[in-house]
């Protein structure tokens, strides 16, 4: 907490030497080193940071995203990395243009801990993580239709009116409690009545009727 002159992490120079223009810019904020990288090479850069001797960012502290109040500013996916052996931190941020589909490569193959964290970013911001083994909503339910709550265009009270939210909650389809995958466990699907089977196969889980 002392006011030491903030220094950029030496990893940023190493990144620039290895990846050139894929490293967009770097900054120090409140003592934390931040580096912005291009989305199409992000997975490559993160794998390099994890596996290169001298970098060894082996611990993924956090994955999150930031949607700025300025609607023209890109949404940023943020990886907080840590090297346990070197006791060094680095934040890697990937800017995503909101006019394009929001997508970035998943890093679950590098860090298993990214599994739920990326699912949460997908749930809350609508960022698709390409290659994620199980990209489902995690905090909101599967059939949640109001959008992605942490986006700035999502109002605090939600997109639906309170009356509509209540109506949907009361009309919720109990079939939505189990996924098709889970129903296959006990072979329960074959035991279901014909009309229920048909609706499940049509992907109508949780549909209002």
């Amino acid at each position, binding site marked *: *907490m*002392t*006011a030491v002159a903030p220094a950029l992490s030496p990893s940023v120079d190493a990144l620039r030497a290895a990846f050139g223009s894929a490293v967009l810019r770097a900054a120090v*904020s*409140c*003592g*934390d080193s*931040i580096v912005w990288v291009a989305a199409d090479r992000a997975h490559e850069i993160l794998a390099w940071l994890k596996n290169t001797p001298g970098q060894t960012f*082996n*611990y*993924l*502290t*956090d994955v*999150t995203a*930031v*949607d*700025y*109040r300025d609607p023209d500013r890109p949404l940023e996916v943020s990886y*907080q990395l840590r090297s*346990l052996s070197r*006791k060094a*931190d680095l*934040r890697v941020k990937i800017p995503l243009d909101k006019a394009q589909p929001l997508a970035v490569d998943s890093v679950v193959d590098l*860090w*298993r*801990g*990214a*599994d*739920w*964290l990326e699912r*949460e970013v997908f749930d*809350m911001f609508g960022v698709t993580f390409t290659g994620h083994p199980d990209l489902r*909503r*995690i*905090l*909101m*339910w599967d059939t949640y239709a109001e959008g992605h*709550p*942490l986006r700035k265009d*999502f109002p*605090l009270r939600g997109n639906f009116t309170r009356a509509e939210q209540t109506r949907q909650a009361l009309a919720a*389809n*109990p*079939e939505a*409690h*189990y996924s098709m*995958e*889970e*129903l296959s*466990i*006990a*072979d*329960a699907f074959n*035991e*279901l*009545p014909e*009309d*229920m089977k048909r*609706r499940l196969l049509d992907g109508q889980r949780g549909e209002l*009727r």
Partner: protein
Amino acid sequence: MSTRTVEMALATPGLDERGRPSRLPLSIGQPGDDDMGAEHMLVNIGPQHPATHGVLRLVLELEGETVKRCIPHIGYLHSGFEKLGEYRHYNQIVPLTDRTDYLSPMANNVCLALAAEKLMGIEITERCQVLRVIACEMSRIISHLVWLGTTGIDLGAFTPFLWSFYQRERIYNLQEAWTGARLTTSLTRIGGMMADVPDGWEAGLRDFTATFTRTLDEVDTMFTRNSIWCGRTQGVGVLTAEEAINFSLSGPMLRASGVDYDVRKDRPYLGYETYDFDVPVGEHGDIYDRYRVRLEEMYQSNRILEQALDRLARLKGAPLNTDDHRVILPPKGRAMSDMEAMIHHFKQVMEGIPAPAGEAYLGVENPKGELGYYFVADGTAKPVRWRIRPPSFINLACLPKLCEGALLSDVIAINASVDIVMGEIDR
């Protein structure tokens, strides 16, 4: 037909001649077919189940009594704290942190204040640091005591639950005397504390630290060499050090697997580097080692508390809050009698404290693991983004891996050993 639930459908293939739902036969295999492994069963635990420690729902695929797959469902307690934080001044976020990890509210308050102070570049006084250390270590003890008691109950030991909750009650009384609340403490403010400790409070905490470890010794006698306890916990839910790091685990979960990473030692805050304490590290990464690590952490927290109390006595009369008038309200007496002080008070409360544009991540060692608060500011008095790095959420994500191949009864023990709190997982 559409009103029938799947639960009903699973148990009722049809109606009998009197119109009542008929039940599935208990075993479906052919007579003489003893290959129970052929039949996979779906078992749903929770979300309303005492052994899931909150509104956690687990869907298990069983082969006989062995867990083939575990699919956790979370979100039942989702409150949108991160979204709410974007609509509040920095000091107004403090009450939200009480409600995330509600088993250690004071430690969350401290983390929030530290993160906001890092963002704004504010230094706090030494006395404030000492009081915050006391708040953190008290929280660690009560959180671990809840873990100890409830895990004991999950594994069939009732008495240590009563002992640990009796000791927890003593800290809750101290917490109540200090903050006025047992759960929603809202203890910290940016640049200082909501309140100083009341007169004579230190004596109460000294009494606690002097006698508390006796209970830990008793629990140690009851559990550590107890053959039932060892049988239920040793070699169950094992994670190697590499797996624990790869799963981004933190806190006792990580250290039980043999990784010596404690934020208090590796990235010290609040002057933790000046306290004399040890970080227990396990070697097998099983439930037993997690128990040993948490038990030892309580002894170590007690040591830190004793040292902090000595420092507090030395700092008697020293200022508590920083003298930075951007963030600290004028004394109440002046605000009531002096026009400028009243305007200052009014503007600060109504407009909040603007933070310079920038971002800061600060992690602290909470009882559950590394709690991190990540602020992104744009120069206004409300954050653009307030991210909670929730240790329980990230620790729980390895549950499917831990449960794979375990017995159904071990799932309860494994889930207890992760030490989750749903308020923080669902936020």
